[in-house]
């Protein structure tokens, strides 16, 4: 993996993560620290799956 692809991967993951954290904040009703922690970790799982899904479709 070259530097550029690593950078692209990180950017993709970060974009998904940010989007999914925002989605989580929209879903919940009251915001507190634990909610933020759980939301961030759930969004991380979602971002990983989003990237894995995209790659699995494009690799043929």
């Amino acid at each position, binding site marked *: 993996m070259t530097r550029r692809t690593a950078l692209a991967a990180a950017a993709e993951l970060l974009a998904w993560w940010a989007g999914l954290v925002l989605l989580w904040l*929209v879903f919940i*009703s009251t915001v507190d620290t634990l909610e933020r922690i759980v939301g961030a970790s759930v969004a991380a799982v979602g971002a990983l799956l989003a990237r894995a899904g995209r790659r699995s479709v494009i690799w043929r």
Partner: protein
Amino acid sequence: MNGWILAATVLLTAGGGAALWGVATGPLSRRVVAQNLSTTVICPSLLLLAQGYGRTSYVDLALLLALLGPVGTLVFARLLADELTGDRPAAWGLTWTAAGVGAAVVLVLCAVTGPSRAMVKLLVIGALLISGNVVASRALSGGLRGVRDG
């Protein structure tokens, strides 16, 4: 009984009845379109019911349906692709009408809710519902042409 529940009842009677009639009779191509329509009708009525009962937590039901309803239609589009090759079920007029009803319901509810996170949630549900509905229609009308056994 308030106006919201009355609206939901009317929507459910008309749309649900039509979807049920379409899915239980006629050729296969009409049935899959009716199945797709049922999601688009029931999701807005769930939103109206949530508003009518004054419970924001009921909105989660509509959220789930907006996500999974189109997935269900994709299942049929995928696994009935062979049988649907003969006559393409293309009911774009119906699809856009149903999408319009969904959009109208979501926008009215947004106006009532006022700017808040709950409003953004409603907008997310509306976007998921309409895009899912349109994509499912696209899949039914030949979007999965080359699918045989994969």
